């Protein structure tokens, strides 16, 4: 993201995740695609966290709880 955060999905993890789910054993992933997928997953998580945080602060809560996440989940899944 724009503020250069530290944590991110490791390439190894991303490619293992994809290979874990591929139905066809012949399917492969190029190195570049893995890097971009790692960015994509990071955006997914940050988006989930940020929307949950916004929902929590809208409800004047100090901690983001499960019900805040549950409220933002449907729209999150529609956007990805």
């Amino acid at each position, binding site marked *: 993201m724009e503020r250069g*955060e*530290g*944590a*991110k*999905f*490791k*390439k*190894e*993890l991303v*490619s*293992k*995740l*994809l*290979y*874990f*789910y*591929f*139905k*066809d054993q*012949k*399917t*492969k*992933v*190029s*190195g*570049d*695609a*893995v*890097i*971009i*997928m790692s*960015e*994509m*997953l990071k*955006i*997914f*998580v*940050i988006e*989930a*966290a*940020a929307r*949950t*945080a916004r929902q*929590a*602060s809208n409800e004047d*809560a*100090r*901690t*983001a*709880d*499960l019900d*805040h*996440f*549950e409220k933002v*989940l449907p729209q*999150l*899944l*529609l*956007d*990805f």
Partner: protein
Amino acid sequence: MADGDRAALSQRLRAAVHYTVGCLCQEVGEDKGLEFSKQTIAAIAETTFRQCENFAADLALFAKHGKRTTVNTDDVKLLARRSKALLNFITEKCNELASSNAEQKEKRAVPTGKGKKKSDRHLEPMVTESEDVAID
């Protein structure tokens, strides 16, 4: 793959995703000045893990549609089609990556690249075309 192996692998992948999600949530939490409960982090991690199944299925189909067996960056762009902002971001990242790859290729125009690093890659056949990618 045997069922037991697959279950064990799924556990390990879940744990790895959970860890990364924890780090990312911490960063977002610091940014917004609130904390994420453990259950929320676990829920986001589980959602991410499940979402990967959709991503993987779509990527495989997109590649197949393009008569390829290797998923490339174009397939990932197609995956990001639903949100305009996301698509712009992903496209930008792809362009950055392409230009940095071009730079690296120019730097070492010596024909030693191919298959050089294959020996210390003891893991499963993961990345093809990985010779252009800096490993961090």
